[in-house]
C-alpha cells in the first residue's frame, strides 16, 4: 500500500494538507495491522498451519478445522468492530467527527 501523495508530474500547485496526510497515515497503519490478523486467522490458521494446529482441539473440533469453519468468521466480525471503533478515535483526533 505505497502512497505517493505528490507525484512529480508537473502540477505541483496542488498539495495535500499535512493534517490529511497524517490522518491517511494513521488509517493505513490501522489497516495493515487488521489485514495482517485477517490473513493470519484465515489463510494462516485455517489453511497453511492447519495440520500443525489440528493436534490441538476445542471440544470435538480439531483446532485447525475449527479455525477454517468457525473461528476465522468470528475473528472477521471482531476485526470490523475494532476498525469501526478505532476509526472513530482517529477521526476525533483529527477533528473529523462532525456527526450529522
Amino acid at each position, binding site marked *: 500500500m505505497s502512497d505517493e501523495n505528490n507525484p512529480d508530474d508537473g502540477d505541483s*500547485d*496542488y498539495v495535500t494538507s499535512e493534517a490529511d496526510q497524517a490522518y491517511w497515515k494513521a488509517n493505513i497503519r490501522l489497516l495493515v495491522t*487488521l489485514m495482517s490478523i485477517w490473513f493470519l486467522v484465515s*489463510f494462516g490458521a*485455517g*489453511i497453511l498451519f492447519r495440520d500443525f494446529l489440528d493436534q490441538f482441539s*476445542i471440544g470435538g473440533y480439531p483446532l485447525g478445522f475449527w479455525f477454517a469453519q468457525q473461528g*476465522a468468521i468470528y475473528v472477521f466480525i471482531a476485526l470490523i468492530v475494532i476498525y469501526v471503533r478505532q476509526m472513530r478515535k482517529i*477521526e476525533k483526533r483529527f477533528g473529523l467527527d462532525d456527526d450529522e
Partner: protein
Amino acid sequence: MTTQTLIYLFVGASFALYIGIAIASRAGSTSEFYVADGHVNPVVNGMATAADWMSAASFISMAGLIAFLGYDGSVYLMGWTGGYVMLALLLAPYLRQFGQYTVPDFIGARYYSKAARVVAVICLIFISFTYIAGQMRGVGIVFSRFLEVPVDLGVIIGMGIVFIYAVLGGMKGITYTQVAQYCVLIFAYMVPAFFISFLVTGNPIPQVGLGSEVADGSGMYVLQKLDATLTDLGFTAYTDGTKSMIDIFCITAALMIGTAGLPHVIVRFFTVPSARDARRSAGWALVFIALLYTTAPAVGAFARINFVETVNEQQYADAPEWFTNWEANDLIAFNDRNGDGVMQYRSGEAFAGAPVFTEERGASGERLVSNDAVEGENEVYVDRDIMVLANPEIANLPGWVIALVAAGGLAAALSTAAGLLLVISTSISHDLLKQTFRPQITEKGELMAARIAATAAILVAGYLGIYPPGFVAQVVAFAFGLAAASLFPAIFMGIFSKRMNKEGAIAGMVSGLAFTFLYIAYFKLWNPDANVAANWWFGISPEGIGVIGMLINFAVALAVSRVTAGPPLEVRRLIDSIRVPRGAGKA
C-alpha cells in the same frame, strides 16, 4: 393440515408480505430507484446486504456442498465471509464518501474516462448475469419439489414477484423487501438446524453441537464419528480434504476478493448516509451473514451422518418417503448393481454422470437409469443440492418446518435475484444512457429507462431459468473470478494509489479479465476433459484462478501507469476528498 397445505400457506403469506412492502415503498426519483436516496439506516442496510448476498447457493447448496466436501468446504465459509473484511476496510467507506450511484460511476470519474466506465459496465453485466442464472435455477428447484408445479411455471411466478418489487420499488423497494426476506430465510435456516443439532448431539446450538459428543451413548465426538463412518465406506475422512493446499488457498482468496468486487454487494453501501455508516453497515452485514455461515458446517455434518444412517444398507422397498420423493424429482437414484434390493452407499460414482431416467422400474420398484456403468460398489446417486431441503424430512421434523424451509429457499433466491437485476438495470440506464450515450435524457426519462431495463433483465433471467444453458452450474466460478480479476483491483488502486491513471487501469482490467475468462472457459467449456489437477497451472483450479488474474491486473496496471502521464489535478483532489470523510458525500 397436511404439509402441502402448510407449504402453500407459508409461501403465499411470505409473497404477500413482499408485495405489500414493495407497494408501500415505491421509488419516485432516480436517486430513490438507484440508492434509496442514501437514507438507509446502517443496521437495516446490513440486514438487506445479508439477504442480497445470501443466495439460493448459500441457502440451498452450501451446507450440502460442505456435507460432501468436509474440510474442503471451508473455502466457501472463509471465502464468502472474509470478503466483508476487505469491503469494510478497503472499499465501502471510500466509495460511499465518493457518493455517486454505481461502481462504473466511480471507475469513470476516478479514471476520467468513458472507456474505463464502459469496460466496468461490461464486467458488471457479465458477472451479474452469470450469477442470476443460478438464482433462477434455485427458484425452479424449490417450486418443482415443494409446490408441485412444473419448473417453468415456478420460474414465471418467481419472475412476476421480482418484477413487482424491483421494477416498482427500485432500490428503495428492494431494501425493505430484503429485510423481510432476511428474517424469513434466517428463521427458516435456524429452526431445523436447532432441531437437528438437538437430535444428534443433545445440544440445540449447532455451532456448539458440531464440537460435541454424539447422543447415541458411544462417547464419540460428532466429527470423530463422521471420520470413522466415512473412512469405513471408502471416503476420505471428513476433517481431511482432497484438494491441495495451494488450491484451497487460491480458491479461498478468489472468493474473498471476488465478494469484495461484486457490484450488487458494493452498491448496497451507496445507500447509507455516510462513510462512517458504510463501515458500521459492513460489520452488521457480516454479523447477519455469519449467523448462517457458522451454522452451515454443522447442518452439513449432521446431514451427512443422518443420510448415511438412514440410507446405507437399507432395503429400497423400506426407503423413507423423502428418498422416493427426491427420486421422483430426478435428484436421487438407486442403481442396484448386485440385485440384492439393498442400498450400498460407498465412495465413488454409482454410474457415469447425472442420472438419465428411463420410464421403467427395477425389481425393487426403483427408477432405472440408462447411464453408462462405472467400476465400483456405490449404488446411490445423490444431488448435493437437496441436503438442506431434504434435511427436515430426513430428520423427521414436523410439516411446518418443511414449509418454512421452502419459504426460506425462495426468499434467498428472490432477494439476490432482485439485487442483481437492479445493478444491471442501473448500469444500463445510468451508466450507458445518462453518463455515456444520451446525457441529455431527463430525470423522468432515465427513471423510465431504468424500469424498462429492469423488465428486460427479468425476461432474460427468466429465460435462463427455464432453459438453463448446460454450463450454468459450471460457470459460477466465473462471477467471482472475474470480479476479483477486473473490478476489485481497479477500485482498490483508485483509492490507494494516486499515481494510477486511466491507461494503467484499463490495461489492467482488460488483461485480468481476459486471462481469467480464457483460463476458466478453456477448462469448463472448451476442453472439460482436461480439467484435472495435472493440467492446471501451478495446481490452481479454474475456481481459484481469479487470484492470478488479479495479480496480472495489478502488474500490468502498475507497469503501464509508470510509462504514461499521471492523473490530472482534479482527480488527485477527488482522491483526497474520498480518503478523508469530511461531511457526507451527496447521493
